[in-house]
């Protein structure tokens, strides 16, 4: 939109220049060009045009708000407020990812799913809410298309896969930087889309358990490729970047 407004302003300035040239030289052609540039220039400035892709992203963001609102309700109902663990799970012959939100748990590192179970997963004394995270279908699609595959937890492999998924395919940011210290993974999204910035204010419980949609997608992918339990530790939202800190538990 801004690009076309800029073209509109440029054409209007060009129109003024042509008009001045006409006044100086009295050549009719300049006046004709002045009128044509003014017509198109004012149209581009005045008309609020929104590119289809931008409208679509906005629409999807609103749907994501609804998803978070539902999870918020669910977590309130179960009185769960703990940090969720993204865990790989085998479903038949294929692999998938689930997020386990602790309700009554002693040790998070032991959280695992042998197979996909119902909403409430009881493992010994531990009780979890078993949810499909945001990013689940993306991971499945990326797997089908051969974009992601299992690999070790290392900076280059995670950075490569996240760049392909988040930058090349989803275009939710301009670039991705990954830093790994011990079991802690820091993912920096440079130039992210800003539609998911306010989730922590609107849905604090869900954001605390799942992380923001950025974190949820990243954690799902990392959990899937490294076959580790992954927890979202912290998120920082800056003007031009989002920092997501994860921990392989």
């Amino acid at each position, binding site marked *: 939109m801004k690009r*076309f407004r800029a*073209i509109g302003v440029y054409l209007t300035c060009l129109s003024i220049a042509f008009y001045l040239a006409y006044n100086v030289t009295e050549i*009719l*052609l300049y*006046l*004709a*060009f002045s*009128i*044509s540039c003014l*017509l*198109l220039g*004012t*149209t*581009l400035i*005045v*008309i*609020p*045009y*929104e*590119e*289809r892709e931008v409208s679509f992203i906005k629409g999807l963001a609103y749907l994501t708000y609804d998803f978070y609102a539902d999870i918020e309700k669910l977590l309130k109902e179960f009185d769960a407020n703990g940090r969720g663990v993204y865990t790989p799970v085998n479903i038949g012959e294929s692999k998938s990812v689930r997020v386990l939100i602790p309700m009554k748990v002693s040790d998070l590192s032991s959280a695992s799913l042998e197979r996909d179970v119902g909403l409430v997963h009881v493992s010994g004394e531990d009780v979890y809410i078993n949810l499909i995270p945001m990013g689940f279908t993306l991971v499945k699609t990326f797997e089908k298309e051969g974009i992601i595959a299992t690999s070790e937890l290392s900076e280059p492999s995670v950075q490569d896969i996240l760049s392909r998924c988040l930058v090349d395919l989803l275009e939710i940011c301009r670039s991705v930087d990954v830093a790994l210290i011990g079991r802690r993974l820091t993912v920096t999204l440079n130039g992210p889309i800003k539609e998911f910035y306010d989730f922590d204010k609107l849905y604090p419980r869900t954001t605390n358990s799942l992380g923001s949609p950025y974190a949820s997608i990243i954690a799902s992918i990392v959990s899937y490729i490294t076959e580790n339990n992954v927890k979202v530790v912290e998120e920082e939202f800056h003007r031009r970047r989002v920092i997501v800190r994860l921990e392989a538990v």
Partner: protein
Amino acid sequence: MNKIAIYVITTLTLFCIATSMLYYVGERRIDVYFSLYLLIYMITTEIILPIKKKYRRYVNVIIGVLFTIFLVIVARRVIEILGWKI
């Protein structure tokens, strides 16, 4: 290329072709240029410009202003032909 880029390029190209042709045939009346521009503008805007319905009135205002100018030009020509003096 998205639709608005096609709209801008098409309209500008048609404006340039029309201007060149009219200048080539020796046309020196600016109202003829304006009339032809208006025609091109209305056609390309109606056919190509991807405008949402709720913003339609913005286009209508622009076209309304341009059409009023066109009517003034036509009225002046008619007055000229009839030989009336204002």
